Structures are given as structure tokens and as C-alpha cells.
């Protein structure tokens, strides 16, 4: 088990500046997710930790060991970093059986045959693939192949585990199941995990901390709750969950909404007077009471919840409500804002 430290990492692909001065500390045993849209540099970061990409400058440490340093001219090859990795397409070797796939890292490490047998068997037990030892990958389902990849990545007790969108090739139901399995596995083994995904709900469900990336720059680092409740900027607010953006005018600790109809006031603290941008989560708008005035434009019944589209003044916004109270299309209603996050201009 080990911590990971990235210091002043820069990465260029030709003239393309893909990682800009990245500083990141991942603690021992932590589950950290790199989250962002495609092209944000999350996979590049992961591959730099693994050793497949060479940073243009900076330093990477795993535990106490410097695995990359531009200044000192250190670049430890991937095979000597003692890292486990699960690839997006699993990369299970098609010419080897399940057993051979999982045994390979141990064979490379010249582990005695009897011990290999024992450890592979134990590992296959953990990923629930006992009895599949002699199958070839083409005889396995996608989910089973993925578990082979996990077993192979963990069998040699690496100090850290890198996961590159491991769930993106699975169907929706299996994906949800695997989230819990991966989290459970991580907890049991106490291993440090770096997880790459563009799926925010996956990141929220599994991570101790999330690193939100955009255009090679860290936007925010925080726990799922912090990132959801207190997004650092508009990008984070928009990318995590869904958000309604409003202009607000703040006077004496109270925010008012110039674009909305009615008399809606929300208390805010620690915000300068003046016009600001703010976000309100759809579930933080309450319908049927409060000073706001509007009209229900559309209603979508999603089972557990109801999504409304409400117009007020010059704006249309989204509201998510429980099904205990129902409003019909075209109805005039009042609304209130329970919570908002104001961004400084």
C-alpha cells in the first residue's frame, strides 16, 4: 500500500499542452477518482502514474520511491513500479486461459509453482471465478473477463491499483453491481485506488475523493459531498449533477432573482454585494410555496421522482420533486429556493 504524489506535472503532446502544472496527493489506502469530460487529461494522468506516458516535467512518487523525476533523470519503467492496472477493454490475453492470465504476473516474479497455484486459486475465489480456470477469454462474458482483469491486477499484491474506465464496456445493470463490488474489494484489501471515469454518478458512488479535471487543469479536489454541495466553479457545478444557473443580486446578506417573477429572497452568507452568478440544484427548488411565481411547462414522471420544467419571468428551469405532491401542466404555482451556491464574479 502506498501514497501517490504528483508534483508540478506538465505534459505536452507535441505542441498540445494536455496537463498543466498538476499537483496531487493521494493518501495511502484512499480511493480517488479522476473525473472529467473526454480530452480532459484524466487518462493521460493515469498513464503517467503507470509509466506508459512520460511527463514533460515534474515529479511522481509512489510511496517513498521517486518513479519519475525530470530533474534527476529518473523514469522507472512500468514493470518495476509494482502497480496493478485494469484497462478499459480489460486486455485479457486471448491466447491464455483464465488461470494462465492470472498466474502470469507471479510467473514473471518467479514465484514457486505451488504458491502460484495457491495464490491464483485464492484470487479467483475473491473475484468469484472458481471453476473457470481452464476457460479461454472468448468463452467468458464481458463481466467475467473484467473479473479476470481484476484478479490479474491484484494477484501480486501491488501497492496501488489503477482503473481506467473499467465499467464503460458493461451494461447498465452490471455496471451498478460492479461499483459496489469494486468498492468492497478495495476496502477489504485496503489498497490505494486511482479510478478514471467520465461518469459522475460512478465517481460519486465509489470515491473517497474526486479530482475534477478540465483541459488538463484540476478544477476541484474534494469528497463527493463537498464537490456536490460546494462546487468550486460553474464547470464543476454543471458537470456534477444537474444545475440551474441564475443571476442573483446580493444586498445585505439576501439574494434576489432579477430574472424571475415574484418576490423570491434567499439568505446568503459571506458574499459581496452586487450581481453574481449562482446555481440551484433542481431538488433544492420547492414547489407549491414561497415567493417565486411561475407556471408548470412540462411534467416527466420517472417513477421515483417527477421532473418539472417551470417557467418564471424570462427563465425556464428544472425542478426535481418527490411524487408525494403533483402539479399538472399549465398550472400556476409558487416556488421557493432552499439552497443556492453563489460564485464570485
Amino acid at each position, binding site marked *: 500500500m502506498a501514497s501517490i504524489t504528483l508534483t508540478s506535472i506538465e505534459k505536452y503532446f507535441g505542441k498540445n499542452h494536455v496537463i498543466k502544472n498538476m499537483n496531487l496527493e493521494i493518501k495511502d489506502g484512499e480511493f480517488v477518482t479522476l473525473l472529467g469530460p473526454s480530452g480532459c487529461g484524466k*487518462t493521460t494522468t493515469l*498513464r503517467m502514474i*503507470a*509509466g*506508459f506516458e512520460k511527463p514533460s516535467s515534474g515529479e511522481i512518487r509512489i510511496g517513498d520511491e521517486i518513479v519519475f523525476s525530470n530533474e534527476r533523470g529518473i523514469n522507472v*519503467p*512500468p*514493470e*518495476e*513500479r*509494482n*502497480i*496493478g*492496472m485494469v*484497462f*478499459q*477493454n*480489460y*486486455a*485479457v*490475453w*486471448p*491466447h491464455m486461459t483464465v488461470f494462465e492470465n492470472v498466474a*502470469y*504476473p507471479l510467473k*514473471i*516474479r518467479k514465484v514457486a509453482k505451488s504458491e502460484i497455484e495457491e495464490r491464483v486459486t485464492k484470487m479467483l475465489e475473491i473475484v468469484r471465478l472458481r471453476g473457470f480456470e481452464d476457460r*479461454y*477469454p*472468448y468463452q467468458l462474458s*464481458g463481466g467475467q*473477463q473484467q473479473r479476470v*482483469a481484476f484478479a*490479474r*491486477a491484484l494477484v*501480486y499484491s501491488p501497492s496501488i491499483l*489503477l482503473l481506467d*474506465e473499467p465499467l*464503460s*464496456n458493461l451494461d447498465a445493470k452490471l455496471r451498478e453491481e460492479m461499483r459496489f463490488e469494486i468498492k468492497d474489494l478495495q476496502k477489504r484489501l485496503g489498497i490505494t485506488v486511482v479510478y478514471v471515469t467520465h461518469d459522475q454518478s460512478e465517481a460519486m458512488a465509489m470515491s473517497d475523493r474526486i479530482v475534477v479535471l478540465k483541459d488538463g487543469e484540476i478544477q476541484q479536489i474534494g469528497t463527493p459531498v463537498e464537490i456536490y454541495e460546494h462546487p468550486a466553479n460553474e464547470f464543476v457545478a454543471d458537470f456534477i449533477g444537474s444545475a440551474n444557473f441564475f443571476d442573483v443580486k446580493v444586498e445585505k446578506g439576501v439574494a434576489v432573482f432579477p430574472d424571475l417573477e415574484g418576490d423570491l429572497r434567499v439568505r446568503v452568507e459571506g458574499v459581496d454585494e452586487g450581481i453574481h452568478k449562482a446555481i440551484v440544484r433542481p431538488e433544492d427548488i420547492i414547489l407549491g410555496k414561497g415567493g417565486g411565481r411561475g407556471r408548470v411547462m412540462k411534467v416527466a414522471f420517472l417513477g421515483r421522482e417527477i421532473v418539472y420544467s417551470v417557467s418564471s419571468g424570462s427563465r425556464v428551469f428544472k425542478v426535481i420533486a418527490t411524487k408525494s405532491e403533483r402539479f399538472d401542466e399549465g398550472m400556476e404555482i409558487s416556488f421557493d429556493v432552499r439552497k443556492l451556491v453563489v460564485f464570485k464574479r
Partner: protein
Amino acid sequence: MNALKIVVLALITILIVLPIVLLFLSSFYANGEFSIASYTDTFSRRSNIRSALNTIYLSVLTTIFATVIGSVLAWIVARTDVPGRSILKTLLMIPYMIPPFIGAMGWMFLFGRGGYANRLSEALFGKELFNVHTFEGLVLVMTMYMYPPVFITVYTALMNMDASLEEAGRICGAKLNKVMRSISLPLVMPSILSGALLVFAMTASNFGIPALIGMPGRIHVLTTRIMSYMASGTERGMNRATALSVVLIGIAVGGLLLNNLVVSKSAKFTTISGKSSRPALVKLGKAKPLVTSLVWIFVSFAVFLPMFSLLLTSFWKAWGLPFKLSSFTFKNFYNVLFVDENTTTAIKNSFTFAVISATVVTAIGSMVAYFSVRDRGIVSKFMDLVSTLPQAIPGTALAVAMILTWSGKFGVNLYNTMWLIIIAYTARYLFLSVRTVSGAVKQVHVSLEEAGRSAGARPLRVVFDITLPILKTALISSWALVFMPTFRELTISILLYGPTTRTIGVTIYELQEGGEYQMASAFATIVLLIAFVLQYLINRYLMKAGEK
């Protein structure tokens, strides 16, 4: 539509099935009854056993050398940091684009009697360097022609291999060299094997190289033996040629069947593929200068030297003149193109045959392709299978089958006419058209045609108004794909030509055999030029069409 299908079925049955069946039947037929007399008679002669064994030896040795050379080069060019990788890839494929008999000429001018390399060596060391007209020479020239199919198969496999399969090996703790051996090599093994078996079949079927390199040294293989028997013109010679053809088909088809087995077995090796990064290149380090120079020496030897010797010869006033400027001339080219009656007639003939064959092949081939994709009936399946059959059958054997069928025995005598050659070309190259067009038909969604039907057009009208215009690019490339090999064909035409139907291939071959090296190489150079220009134009056309 159904009437059309029956017409096409009848056409390809007569074109392909009938001659091949007749070839088999007549090889087991003597004095009016079933008998293996043809075979016992044929193999009672030592020289025939010798030529069959030679075919096998030559194929095995060529396969081994071509596979090793092709695979190693593919690995170097695809996966190491050797400089100039993309230009190397193009250069290494050149021998494959040159007709084998023309390539063989280049080697003759180097290592034949009085060849440039031999003359140089005689001047320096007082003895010949190497006689190409030996079995070793035959293996050498054949290998230089046969390594490219292995090279390109393995190269493609290495390039398309999912990089994460190798990265997974690295992350598990294996060094790059170990990863290459334990993961990459097993994964490309099916490609290597498949390339090797293809080379085996192609070598056994080849006529041009054994004819030019082997025959002057009295080394016969099956293809050249069959030609000699056919040239004898006797009934007995014909029977022996027939039996040898069946044996030859057996060897070639055996190789291809094994190939299919390997390919189908390796299908399970395909995996889910995600976003893929470029595979890591092996750094050659200290070995880099050595590897680089070895590769470039090979390229000079395999590609530049024979081409250079061919070109040099085409400017020579007469073979054997001293090496000085006054010995060179452009006259050979002028003679070939405008003066010599043999060569000018050959150009006219080959051009006519190629245009007619390409047109007929594309017409029939596109119908077969259309039926086999659109209509899954057993008749269409049969047509598809039959049209691809001649791909596996050596040209020499196919030509023998054509003579058996069309020389009057069954009421139609096309012997010595251009139609015999055109029919043989059509049967031989039909598969090219079927493959090209059926690929394109698969891309055209059936709903485009259904929209035409619902707009009120009859099926045939839909074909002309909608399907054909969409398939235009495929039809043109099918035409060109057939035109190019038929324009310079040797293997079939050498057996089927008559006094008035000499082709370019036959004429170059005869000029070379007759020692008129300057004329032969000038003619060959012109053919190569036409081939390269055509190839370039087609590539450009396809590229432009692809942009649309």
C-alpha cells in the same frame, strides 16, 4: 430478376465448373473407361516425379525463408524505432507489385550468365559470383518475390494489435522483451502461419520465376513441366499435363485449406477493443546502426538492384558491350513501341484482351456479388463459392482445363482465338470483382432500394437508377483490379496463345528466352511504368471517391 439469376448461374457454371470438372474427369479416364493410367504413365517417368518433388521442395524452402524474412522485417518496421519506417514499408512491398517474370529478369541480369554482378566479380576475382540458374537461385528469386505477403500480413497484425494487451504485460512486471515473446508473438502467430501457407500455395502455382530461372538450368517444377507437355502438342503430352495439373491443384488447394483452418481457428483470438493507444516501440539502442544498415542493405538487394539491372539493360545497345556511355541508347524503347511488329501487336492484343476481360468480369462479377449479398438462397451461395474457386487453382492448371474444354472436343473450338484467352482470364479473375463489389453492396443498405420500390420503380429499374450509381466506385475499381493483372498476364496466355494472339507477357518471355535482353527489358520497363501509373491513378481516384 430470377431469369437473370439463372443466366448468371449458367454462365459461371460453363466458365468455371465445367472446365475444372472436365480436367478431373479426363485425368481419370483412358480408353473409354475409368482408369488411373494417366497417373501411372505420368509418374513412370523420373523427370515428372522430380518436378513434383521440386515443386514441394521449392515451396517448402521458399515458405521458410519468406516467412522468416517477412516476419522479422514486419516486426522491425512495425515495432522498433528504426528510422524511415513508413518509407521502408512502401519499399518492401514493391517486389509484390512487379510481375514475377519481370522481377526474375532483373535477377537474371544480375546473376545470370554474363550478369552484371557476375561480370564484376569475374573482373575482380576471376570467377562468377553466383549462378542464378540453380535450385538455390530459384529459391532466392522466389523468396525475394514471396516475402511481401508475409510481411504485410504480420505488419498489419502487429499494428492492429491492441496496445493494452502489451501494456497489461508490462504492468504485471514483464520487461518489453519478455512481453514481445510471451504475449505479442503468440498473438501474431496465426497471422504468420496464415501468411506462410499462402506463400506455400502461391509458390507452387508460380510459373514465371521457374520458367525464367529454373528452365535454363534444366530445373523443372510442375508448372513448367505442364507447359512443356502442352507445347509438345501430342495426345500423350496432353494426358500427362492433365494429370500433373490435378496434382498441382492438390498441392495448392491443400495449402489454402490449411490456411482457412488457421484463420478460422484464430478468430477466437479477437478481443473486445476499446480506445487504443499506439503500441510502444522497442528501442534498438546500440543495435540500431546495425539493424538499420541490415534493413537498408536488404532493401537495396531485394528491391533496387534487380530494378536497376532491368532498367540498365533496357538502355543497352547490345548485351555484353563494354560499360561506357556510347553503349547506351533509347532506341530499344522506340523499337518496342513503334517499330517491332511483334511488340506492337502484343500491346494491341493485351490491351484488347484486358479491356474485354475486365468489362466481362465486372459485369458478371457484380451480378454474382449482388445476388450473393442480397439474396441468401442456395443458388446465390453456390455462385459465390464457385466464383472464388479459381483463386485457389493455379493459372497453369486452369489454362489446361480451358484447352480441354474449348478445343473442339465438345463442339466448340476456340483454340488459337482470342476468346479462349478471354474466357480463361474471366474465370481466373472473377473472384477479384466479386470480392470488391460484394464488399460495396454490403455497405448499401437495402432500405435505399426499398425506397425506390415504394416510389414506384420496378426491381430492375431500381438496380439501374439507384444501386448501380451508388456502386460506381466499386465497379470502376473492380474493372481496374482485373485490367492490371490481365494486361501483363503470362501464366495463362503462354499456354493459350496462338499465332495471332501473342500477349505482352508471352512476347517479353520469348524475347528474353531468345536472348534479346535489351528489347525484353525495355518492354518490361514500359509495362512496369504503365502498371505504376495506373496504380497511382486508381489510388487517387479511390481516395477522391472516399472523400465524398
